[in-house]
């Protein structure tokens, strides 16, 4: 699967355009952004969030694909400071929520509890992102009128949306995801536009 297709899939399944790598507001330079403190504990948490979204089945899950490493790199290099802040606050929030609900940290919660929490966050994120989009609309329209839509930068999406997007990005570009969960054909050698498949066959990737 090519990159653009992956970004489309992510947008479709998270209800938001891929966060990070959008364009910057003039005058909002990211000089010396503070280094983002990804501790081993945080990486472990992110791997478990990822694994809850994409668990190990007959193919490896998000943890085996080390999605937390990709999250760390993308958040550090590609997110704007405001997005980084929202992401890191989210990391904290997940444990706050988990403690409130289950009396333990997310990584210590049972798999079913983790699922329950993330499903709740998904609902919360949907509402939150709609509000953020509504808030952004006049700014976006104004830039569009000046023919400068490329300078638009969205307000941070809900932290769970970011985590889910990064999980999907990382997993479906990882060796584990592409070669085990999908049918990876790096050099097809030929083209067949009427290739027969059966129900349940894995999608091709490249």
């Amino acid at each position, binding site marked *: 699967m090519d990159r653009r297709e992956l970004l*489309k899939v992510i947008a479709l399944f998270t209800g938001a355009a891929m966060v990070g790598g959008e364009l910057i507001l003039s005058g909002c*330079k990211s000089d010396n*952004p503070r280094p983002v403190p990804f501790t081993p504990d945080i990486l472990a948490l992110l791997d478990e969030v990822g694994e809850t979204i994409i668990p190990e089945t007959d193919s490896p899950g998000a943890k085996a694909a080390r999605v937390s490493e990709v999250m760390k790199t993308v958040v550090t290099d*590609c997110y704007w400071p405001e997005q980084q802040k929202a992401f890191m606050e989210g990391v904290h929030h997940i444990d706050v929520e988990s403690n409130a609900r289950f009396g333990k940290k997310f990584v210590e919660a049972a798999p079913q509890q983790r699922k329950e929490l993330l499903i709740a966050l*998904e609902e919360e994120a949907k509402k939150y992102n709609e509000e953020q989009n509504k808030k952004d609309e006049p700014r976006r329209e104004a830039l*569009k009128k000046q023919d400068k839509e490329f300078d638009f930068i969205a307000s941070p999406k809900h932290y769970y949306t970011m985590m889910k997007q990064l999980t999907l990005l990382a997993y479906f*570009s990882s060796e584990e995801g592409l070669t085990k969960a999908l049918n990876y054909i790096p050099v097809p050698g030929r083209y067949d536009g009427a290739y027969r498949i059966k129900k349940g066959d894995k*999608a091709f990737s490249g």
Partner: protein
Amino acid sequence: MIDNVYDAIVIGSGIAGGWAAKELAEKGLKVLMLERGRNHEHIKDYVNANKDPWEYPRRGQRTREMIETHPVLKRDYPLDERVLNMWVNEQESPYVEEKRFDWYRGYHLGGRSLLWGRQSYRFNKWDFEANAKEGIAADWPIRYEDIAPWYSYVERFAGIQGSKQGLEVLPDGEFLPAVEMNIVEKDLANNLKKHYQNKRHMFIGRSANITLPKPEQNRVNCQYRNKCWLGCPFGAYFSTQSSTLPAAKATGNLSVEVNKIVTRLLYDKDSKKATGVEAIDAENNRTYDYKAKIIFVCASAFNSTWILMNSATDIWPEGLGSSSGELGHNVMDHHFRCGAGGTVEGYEEYAEYGRRPSGIYIPRFRNVYDDRRDYLRGFGYQGGAGRGRGVEVPEMLGAEFKEAMCVPGKWHMGMTGFGEMLPYHENTIKLDKEQKDKWGLPVLRMNVEIKENEKKMRVDMMEDAKEMLEAMGVKDVWTYDSGYAPGMGIHEMGTARMGRDPKTSVLNGNNQVWDAPNVFVTDGACMTSSSCVNPSLTYMALTARAADFAVKELKKMNI
């Protein structure tokens, strides 16, 4: 100094420059090719061509630094870490936007021949006649018949896959076996033909990807990876590196110098000819002179004109070719980014194996034969049908969700119009009076916009796409206009147009500068109108034709 004397100098190494070098060297001339950027070796320097997606630590996401250092490139898809070193350094080579202009440049050996979309179409006979018939701009000094044999000549060498359709609106060429349409596209194409009584057509986009090996050029046929952008280790798409450069080198007549920025043509006012070029070395800033009997200016449209603007200014303050009053005027591009898409029901038992390097093409049907619109000219469509990935399930995470994300999704079909832009005298590039680049050279100032004709056309580009998709049986059709700024098509044309009269054109019918007949401009700068089809094949044909003419004239001692 004696070392710097050649029969011919070719400025630029992209599609036009590569062809000029090959043709001139094969005809026995000692040729020097000057490239302003670095060397880029075939295969060896395609460093990302065989990388797997997981080898990119950010998995292709743009970094803040990339965005901040690429104020132009960031505006659209070209800003991508996989090809970051294939686009110009914007800090070193700025320009001024009086109006927004997105200028995507490739300053390295091979230029944008390594990055191009490879779509390869002939202009039709009406494209060459329209300006004269409609009283627009100036008449082309050539007709389809003049260029047709040269289209054939370059198609055979470059290798163009495509299917013959027998349409006047998009003349057939010398094709390699066509890449296939997929099963959905084939059915939709039949529906289209039926619905419009054989007046609208959809077939595979003709492209410079070889479907049979070309052992004489050391090129292997396409492997359907669709990674052309990264440089093809198989040499399966046409580029300077894969095709014209090796042929030119094989003659033993070609010298190549990289990192040489040509600053002006040296002009002798007594003989009314250029005697050579002046260049500065991009790395050490030293100035070099090179002498030659003929010069091919193929530096990409705007940079070719920039060189003319800086030449012979003691005689013509606005530069060589400015006596016409048209140098720097009539900028064109193709406007696009609007069309429609939708989903196709069924075909669940089929998928595509392999990734094609070309989609479908629907040639122009507006203002053709008895069709009349309230604007001039027309547009074609590029697009295709494909299967998405992932099906929607109620679960938002977990095993069922994962499973649903790993299977093929629905088929969808989309198309984007590519429209002709008229040559407007007031759409210009000029030398800016203040700003300089890294080497202290003046930079260009862009003042280009689309006007009513293009805006009216865009409505059709969107609405016609919707109507056709629905007629073909596509469901849930949606339309879009993502907006267009000049330059986004990366098809810069005009600024030194060909014509019949030195008072209204910079070049004659053989691409000679009227005021310096041993100077030939054969890249996008020479275009008198833009058609709606991708232009590179036309640059190839015009270049080969001009090179043939130049060598004959040289032998007759006419230049």
